[in-house]
């Protein structure tokens, strides 16, 4: 459905683009492996029935409407070479016509044809769970048409849309790491649609509880930074690097000194809480103090790229769960790293403390090929031990304390501030997105991945 809506908005202008419809090279060939020999013709949004009929006339094809077939689906296999069927609601026609014939019509200046594509052979999933097959049944009964038939057309239309929108192949085939150009934006920002977002995090306070921050980093000159150390005897100044990297991802600038852009919420207010020492160590008490500080300061988001391993079957901390639940009620959402203890495919470890609390979002890491990172922990334990969402966490470039300025590292620690920064964009987009409703919109808007929910939860976080 969403794809249909996007198609509509993309071509809602009444003027006709001058460009020729995209006709794949394969149109000029005959039937190939995986195609039926028939062709799908996609019409522009708003192309009326008359326009489609005209196409039929010009191409010498007798067009029937699918809505005329009361007793069932049109039998496409029996289409004569000069016949076609129109699906008015989809703006698609299926024709059994030689492609050269369609192409000449499509190339006409006033053509309403957006694309022509060989009809692919689509197979039904054979692993549909019973409930799913049952749920699909009523539709088939109501129309008298086998549901597989519609599924095939849905997939074909989606495929056409992807081709037109240039997103085909974005979800790369397993095994191949696509070379994502990072000239302007890191792959993580691209994969989460941050560059296209009109939101900046302006007015949203983001607390990052970590090893502190390089307060003199040139990429953050002029930014509003509030900081506090909860580590005895150590100043906020980041003597480790981890905190500066995480703050960079969540809140880094629109125009860094050196491209690519790596930060999400570039106009957010930074709250740098040092709860881990320069040596990278800390305890529950300091982290709880940091959370209280963030809540007191009305931070909408707390990003915590930290965790302590738990055993399979071990329950979450009730103290942290209560604290997180009360923070949510006060409008502060805590987002935490799921942990890096797994060594896939052999070893799978459960989500760490405190990300395993039901009221804290647990973030898994994926790579630029949309695969679960080998180290990313899994939702093994019940009751809050699930993964909620995934973020970019392999080969992530961000800020690093001077003199290095930048560093590229991996971890669920890097995935977490992507989610935190994007949470700030959502929080800016609607003042109602706070606490639990902010958590909900993040998971609801996540991009579904072809991976287990045990590994990536609702999918890859997406910017509004």
């Amino acid at each position, binding site marked *: 459905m969403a794809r249909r809506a996007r198609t509509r908005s993309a071509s809602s202008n009444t003027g006709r683009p001058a460009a020729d419809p995209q006709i794949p090279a394969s149109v000029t060939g005959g039937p190939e492996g995986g195609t039926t020999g028939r062709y799908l013709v996609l019409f522009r949004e708003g192309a009326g029935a008359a326009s489609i009929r005209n196409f039929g006339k010009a191409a010498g094809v007798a067009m029937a409407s699918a809505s005329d077939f009361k007793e069932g689906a049109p039998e496409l296999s029996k289409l004569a070479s000069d016949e076609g069927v129109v699906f008015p609601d989809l703006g698609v026609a299926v024709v059994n016509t030689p492609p050269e014939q369609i192409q000449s019509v499509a190339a006409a200046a006033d053509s309403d044809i957006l694309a022509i594509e060989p009809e692919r052979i689509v197979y039904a999933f054979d692993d549909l769970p019973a409930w799913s097959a049952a749920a699909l049944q009523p539709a088939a009964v109501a129309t008298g048409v086998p549901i597989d038939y519609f599924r095939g057309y849905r997939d074909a239309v989606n495929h056409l849309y992807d081709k037109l929108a240039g997103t085909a192949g974005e979800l790369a085939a397993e095994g191949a790491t696509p070379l994502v150009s990072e000239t302007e934006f890191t792959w993580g920002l691209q994969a989460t649609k941050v560059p296209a977002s009109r939101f900046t995090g302006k007015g949203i306070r983001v607390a990052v509880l970590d*090893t502190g921050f390089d307060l003199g980093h040139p990429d953050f000159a002029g930014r509003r930074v509030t900081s506090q150390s909860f580590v005895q005897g150590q100043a906020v100044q980041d003597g*480790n*690097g*981890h905190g500066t*990297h995480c703050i960079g991802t969540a809140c880094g600038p629109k125009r860094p000194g050196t491209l690519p852009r790596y930060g999400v919420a570039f106009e957010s207010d930074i709250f740098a809480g040092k709860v*881990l020492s320069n040596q*990278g*160590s*800390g*305890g*529950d*008490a300091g*982290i*709880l*103090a940091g*959370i*209280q500080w963030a*809540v*007191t300061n009305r931070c909408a988001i707390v990003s915590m*790229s*930290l*965790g*302590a391993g738990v055993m399979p079957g071990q329950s979450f*901390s*009730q*103290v942290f769960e*209560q*604290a997180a639940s*009360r*923070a949510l009620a*006060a409008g502060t959402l805590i987002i935490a790293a799921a942990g*890096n203890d797994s060594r896939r495919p052999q070893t799978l470890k459960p989500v760490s*403390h405190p990300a395993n609390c039901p009221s804290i979002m647990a973030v898994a890491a994926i790579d630029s090929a949309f695969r679960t990172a080998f*180290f990313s922990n899994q939702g093994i334990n019940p009751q809050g031990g699930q993964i909620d969402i995934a973020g970019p966490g392999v080969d992530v470039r961000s800020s690093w304390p001077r003199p290095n300025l930048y560093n590229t*590292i*991996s*971890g669920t*620690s*890097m995935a977490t501030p992507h989610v935190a920064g994007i949470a700030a964009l959502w929080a800016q987009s609607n003042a109602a997105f706070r606490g639990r409703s902010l958590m909900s919109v993040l998971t609801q808007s996540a991009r579904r991945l072809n991976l287990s929910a045990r590994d990536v939860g609702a999918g890859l976080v997406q910017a509004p």
Partner: protein
Amino acid sequence: MAKVRLTLSVSDSHLKKLGTVAKAAAKAGMKVEQTHKTLGVLSGSIDAGKVEKLRAIDGVDRVEEERTFQLPPPGSPVQ
């Protein structure tokens, strides 16, 4: 006696009486270092043998020994 560091949460009914709970915890032998009002959490330390006394205090919901966290060294590829 060995000291343990711990965190303690109060039940919802005692969220507004955190100070009272903190006083009772101190009386039971806890060195209360931090009091977090919104979260309803206290943290501090106590003699290992006195932890059970804390659990008996009216309004105390959970008592947990403090966990520690350790990041990998800054040079590690996985953080």
